């Protein structure tokens, strides 16, 4: 019985974060928790990307002194992840600002309630009568 190699442990961690985050995104109800789940999923994606450049026994891609002291890990995925992290926090801030605004306007922080009221709002804006008898609104929206 040998232990799984280090990369597998890390890869499993990254995939777990991705799955947990995506599961949270489809199942959560509270808007703030949806934003949090998104952050977890992004963290998983970022780790996955960094792992694509990792190799055993290599050093960080920074030249200290004249000659490199052995093989280095791939710097490209690290640069990509720097970009992805900053993108993630920008999107998160915008999402939270929208949550605040939506809460102020609709008085709810729950996704299903928000969705129902949004549909009512759209009907009202289009001048449609608020109709309860309309067959399940879910049928009309392709998700």
């Amino acid at each position: 019985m040998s232990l799984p190699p280090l990369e597998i442990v890390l890869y499993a961690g990254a995939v777990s974060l991705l799955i947990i985050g995506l599961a949270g995104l489809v199942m959560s109800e509270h808007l703030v928790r949806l934003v949090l789940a998104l952050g977890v999923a992004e963290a998983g994606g970022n780790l996955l990307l960094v792992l694509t450049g990792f190799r055993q026994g290599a050093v960080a891609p920074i030249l200290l002194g004249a000659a490199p002291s052995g093989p280095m890990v791939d710097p490209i995925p690290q640069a990509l992840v720097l970009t992805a992290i900053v993108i993630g926090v920008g999107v998160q801030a915008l999402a939270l600002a929208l949550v605040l605004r939506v809460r102020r306007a609709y008085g709810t922080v729950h996704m299903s309630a928000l969705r129902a009221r949004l549909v009512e709002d759209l009907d009202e804006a289009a001048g449609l009568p608020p109709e309860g008898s309309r067959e399940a609104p879910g049928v009309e929206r392709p998700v």
Partner: protein
Amino acid sequence: MYWITVLVVAVMVLSALAVLLLPNLLAAVAASSVVSLALSVVFVIVRAPDVAMTEAAVGAGLSGVILVLALRRLGLWGLGDDNRPQPERFSGTGDDA
């Protein structure tokens, strides 16, 4: 080294689960900061010091502050159970599934 990695990854995954499952949102935000901190340790382990610094500053620090500010403005700044109190028609079913 190996067991440290396993430990950090385990902490990271368990905190990620906690983000979804903790009933209190302030606690969930704290858990998400723990995810980021553990992740930045993992980045150090995979020889990505730049990414580790960014993740610690941005993921754990900045995004934690933004989340806490938002929670304060939402009036969810407390240690109660955030799934119940909203007086709404659709109360949080499935929030902690």
